[in-house]
């Protein structure tokens, strides 16, 4: 089964903040009294989405072999796939980037799409499509981390404004 993964740690870099730790600093926590109580981020895939967005927008790729990964989930969340069109946008951006160099070659475009998409998978992506997306996601994560001074953000307001700044 195709799954989403997150970065647990970077190989040979003990100081690298994993996505799990980063997630804890922005995820919704109804029991706390700080800003996280009102966080719009309910599922860990939300962070994966934002990182993918940044990676795809800025065309930043990271080699997933450089990281130790850990399991996230095997499907898009309702928030990203039903209550919004976020999933479709990410897939559109991924296909746009990967087919861009074959703009006039219909067969090649179709070949790439066949190799990247898979309606029978709950992620809608094949193994190779998913691998490609992860590389952009990790590229985006690295960029966000850099913007946060290689640390977790001090608050949710800070995090959202930093992401906005990167995307502007």
């Amino acid at each position, binding site marked *: 089964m195709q799954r989403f993964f997150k970065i647990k740690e970077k190989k040979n870099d003990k100081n690298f903040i994993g996505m799990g730790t980063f997630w804890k600093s922005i995820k919704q926590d*109804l*029991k706390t*009294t700080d*800003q996280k*109580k*009102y*966080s*719009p*981020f309910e599922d860990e895939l*939300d962070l994966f*989405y*934002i990182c993918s*967005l940044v990676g795809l*927008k800025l065309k930043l790729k990271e080699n997933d072999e450089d990281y130790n990964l850990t399991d996230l989930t095997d*499907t898009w969340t*309702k928030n*990203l796939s*039903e209550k*919004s*069109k*976020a999933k*479709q*946008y990410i*897939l*559109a*951006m991924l*296909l*746009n980037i990967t*087919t*861009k160099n074959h*703009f006039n070659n*219909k*067969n090649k*475009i*179709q*070949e790439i*799409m*066949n*190799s990247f*998409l*898979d*309606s*029978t998978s*709950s992620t*809608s992506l094949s193994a190779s499509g998913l691998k490609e997306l992860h590389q952009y996601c990790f590229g985006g994560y690295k960029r966000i981390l850099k913007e946060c001074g290689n640390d977790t953000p001090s*608050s*949710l*307001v800070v995090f*959202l*404004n930093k*992401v*906005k700044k990167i*995307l*502007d």
Partner: protein
Amino acid sequence: MSKIEEVKITGWSHKGLRIPDYEIDLKDPNSKRNFSLILQLSGEGKTTTLHLLRYCFYNFLKDIENKKERNERFDSIKSLDNTINKGQFVLKLKLNNEINYKIHLEFDFKNYELKYFTSAGDGEGMDAGLNLPDSLKYHLKPEFIEKSFFDLELVNELFDEQEKETDKTISNLCKIYFLDTISKSFDYYKEQREENVEDPNISESDVRGKKLKREKIQQQIKNIEKKAAEMSTKRKSLKSEYNKLDNEEKKIREDKKEIDRILTDAENNLKEKEDELEKTFSEAYDFLKNPMSLDQRLFDELKVFEDNLTKKSIPKSVGEAFFKDLVASDECLCGEQMTEARIKKINISKTKYLTDETYTVLNPIKAVIIESKKIPNDLINKSFGELIKKEANLRRAKNKLIDVRKNFDNERLVEIVEIKTEIKNELKPLNEFLEDTYKKPYNKGDTPDEESKKSLEKQLEKIEDEISQGTNTVDLSNKTKIVKKWIREIKKESLEEISKKLVDDINKEVPRVMPYEPIYVKSIKNKIELEGRTGAAQGQKARITYLFLVTLLNRPNLKFPFIVDSPVTAMDDVSRVEIAKTLSKDLKSQYIGFLLPPERPNFANTLDEELKKNINLIVAFSKNKNTQNLIDQARNYDTVDINKFENGVVAYDRDFFYSFSGTYSNDEEGKE
């Protein structure tokens, strides 16, 4: 065996379980005694006994697939003595007032196993399994049992529109749900016929694919129904807890009205600021979830991407089945004979054509790009800019509330507010699923992974149509649809007719049950709605609930025990008296009430009086150092044998029932 018209419980015994090892005997002289009250202290295993009684009528483990949940259920019944690994519960029944039945539940707590044994008649022989007569099995579905074993939480649920508990209760007690079983049997018949079709219109692999999709949708419907049922149970329990806390809070605040006003203002202000910040966070994330709206360059890029695909007629698919059928045929499209080399070439070239799988994913992506519109930058910038402002507003509102609370020193109130907030937070995802996700309408691009029942049912209908067209069973499918439509209509009309009759019957009794302030029922569609008023006191609601249930229970052909846990808890004197009168006058089936000592006044004596003492008044408690004073009380009654059971006492003495003081030896305040 002739038709079973009446089931009576004549007693039960237990050993090696969380409750003491004793036996309860419900005496039934001349087969004319229907009422029994069992007086127990709080924490003495009433709820465990009720669960065990339920489990005697259906194997509860069948519905529990989750191992952890299954083990938890076992552990809640298991004796606290860790050396005991086996337990037994035996229920004695009398059917039609003549045939004795025994149901044995043998628990193996070490291996988490449960075995059922049944014995019919008075002999010693037992058969493995839960073997009740067929005509009885037909009635005793879990839905029916759940409603016959009633607790007062149902009162609030019956008045809550969100739960739609009136319809569910009527459907379960009048067994309207059997119509669904009939409806499903038509589907089963149709599926069997599809299997035997010899000349389908589409390839076998296509038929197989569509059937697999149907199975997936059917399974998903089962999964989400189970999930919704679990969430609904959790929601009911949370709401009940919330209501109790809310009432307690109201009482505390009523005593200090001025402070309450200031506190309410500060709380409302905080709530407003919280909502504003939450909304702004949500808006900001919504922008991020719509990246084309954020950035003109990305917007243009994706529009060009979509435009290019459209110009190249992408997507337009050639199904995998086409290539499969092609390589399996003797001839190639060009008319030449199919060879290994040609098959290889086709398998390589087919990747250049869009597959069905790609087509299915690509279409919605294109649609999203086409529909996307750019949002003005200043609007987006303003939304992100607002985050800092709203966060500061919230901080100020919080400080203000802290100041007010400092002047209002009531620990319990603070605790109640905190717990209520926690409950509200827990309710949020439950409500989202039950009211939003589960009821979401069907959308064209929906997949079998959806969690919306409406969407899945629509998808099922569509795939059923495709299968019947592919398998030449359209005629049968149409007939099935008509029959199922009739069944739905019958179900709807039955519910309406029963509801109307119930309202009439309840209202006839209102002047007697509520003599001082009669409250009439206007409707019981989805919830109990009162005539000319929006609410009623808890005691009044409870009286109407009893009327509702007693009237319902008297409807079916089968008289089945009505078992109630804490039947009149937190109820005023008048309500207790009137409920006792309603039960004694109107209930035709057996009644077993598990009573706490504070519930005894006005209820037990009224029942006793109305029934002219034709009632079992039983006291049961465990034997341990904490209950020494209860044992000492029992010693004063000659008819009470305190040595009959090793770790429990069961007394059938009327005087002892009324004098039983009901406190533990080392508990000054009592645990009632």
